[in-house]
C-alpha cells in the first residue's frame, strides 16, 4: 500500500501525524514532508486511518 502525498493541499492540521507519527513525518513547521509514503503491511490499517483523517483530503490511498 502507498499513500500519495499532495503537499500543495497540506495545511498542517497534523491529524495524520497524531494518528501515526512513525508513518507520517512532519517538517519543522508541522506540515507533511514531501514524497509518497510506502506503507509496510503491518502498518496498513493505521496508515489508512491516518490518511482518512486529513481534513483537506491531501492524502490519497493507493492499494
Amino acid at each position, binding site marked *: 500500500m502507498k499513500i500519495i502525498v499532495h503537499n500543495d*493541499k497540506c*495545511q*498542517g*492540521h*497534523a*491529524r495524520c*501525524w*497524531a494518528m501515526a507519527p512513525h508513518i507520517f513525518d*512532519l517538517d*519543522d*513547521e*508541522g*506540515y507533511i514532508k514531501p514524497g509518497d509514503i510506502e506503507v509496510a503491511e503491518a502498518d496498513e490499517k493505521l496508515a489508512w*486511518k491516518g490518511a*482518512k*483523517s*486529513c*481534513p*483537506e*483530503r491531501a492524502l490519497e490511498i493507493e492499494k
Partner: protein
Amino acid sequence: METFATSPIPAHVPLAMVGDFSLFSSPGMQPTPNGDPQAAAAVVHEGPRIFYSPVNTRDGRGTWVITRAQDQRRVLQDPETFSSHRSIFASALGESWPMIPLELDPPDHGKFRSLLNPLLSPKRVMALESAVRERAVFLIDRIAAAGTSCHVMEDFAFPFAVNIFLRFLGLPDDRLDEFVTWANELLHGDNVQRPAAARTIIAFIDELAAERRKRPVDDFMSFLVQSKIDDRPLTDTEIRGTGVLLFVAGLDTVAAAIGFDLNYLARHPQDQEMLRGEPSRIVLAAEELLRAYPTVQMIRVATKDIDFEGAPIRKGDYVSCATMIANRDPLEFPHPEKIDLTREDNRHTAFAYGPHRCLGSHLARREIVVGLEEWLKRIPPFRIKEGTSPVTFGGHVFGIENLILDWS
C-alpha cells in the same frame, strides 16, 4: 447590545435566495438560558446549500452563507477567489491594516506562516504541555479546595487560557484580569467598548514591541521584532497586526470551548463516567466536542464575480463559512445531531480548512484535552448547579456565561 446598521439586499441577489437565518439574530443566537446555539444553527441544513443572509456580521452586513462542508472546503481552499483581507479589527477604528497572518492572502501569507508555524507546531506544543498541565492542576486544585461548586468561566476557563497565552508571550500573570476584560470588551462589548478595547490592546502591543526592541529577552515579541521577511525586518504595522491577532485569537476561543465542553458533560453523566473511567478516551472525545461546539465563523470576500452553485456571488460580497454549520452537515457526518464521544472518522472544521487553518490549533487541542483530563481527575461527578442556568449566545464568537457547576 448591538445596534445593527440597516443593510439593503444588494440588487444582484435574487430574492428567492434570501434566507432569514442569521448567526446574530435567529432563535438561539441571542443570549439564551440553557441554550444550544450550535444545534440551533444546524436548522440551515433544512434549506439550500447556499443562501443570502441580510444581517450576518457584527457590523450588520449581509453575507452569503455556505451550508455544506464540502462547499466550505472549496471556498476556504481558494484564497485567490475568496480573500480574507478584511481588516476587521482595524476597521472598527476606521483604519485599514491586516491582522497577520489571518487577513493576508498568498503569497505574503505564506511568508508569515513560515515564520510563525514553528512556534506553534505539534512538536513545539509537546514541549509546552507540562506548563499547560501545571496550570490546569493549580487552578482546579484551588477550586476543589474552595468548595463544591464553581463559576467555570471565571474560575477556570479564562484564567487557564489567558495564563497560557501570557506565558507564550513571555508576560507575567499579574495583568491577567486586565487582559480578560480587554478581550471580553473587544469580542462581546458594545459599539463604545469595542473600539476602546481595541485601542488599549494596540497601545499595549506597540509598547511591548518597543520595549523588546530595546531589551530583547527570550519571548515571542522579542522573536518578532528580531525576525525578517524577505530579508528585511518586520514593519511596526506588521508587528502590531501579528501581536493583535495572537491576542484576539488565543483567549476567548479556547475558554469558550472548555465552557461548552463542561456544560455538555454536566448534562451527560454517563459520558462523564466513561471518560473518568477511561481517560485515554479523552483525546478522541475532545475531537467530537470540537465538532459539536465550535465557536467561530470564517468570512471571506469575493475577489471577482463567480457563480457558486447557482448563487451569483459578486466581487466584494461577503461569504460566510460557519464552523458550526459545516460540522453539523448530514452529508459529511452521519447523524450530526448526535454527540458521540467515541466517534471516529471525524474530519471536523473547528479550526477551518485551507491555508488559514488555525495557527494555534495544536496548542488549543492540548489545552482542551489537558483541561478535561485534569478536571475529570480532580472533580467528582458534577452537574449544573440547581436553580442556575448557563446562558449561551451565538454571534461573532459563540460563547457561554454563568456556567455554575456543583458536585455537593
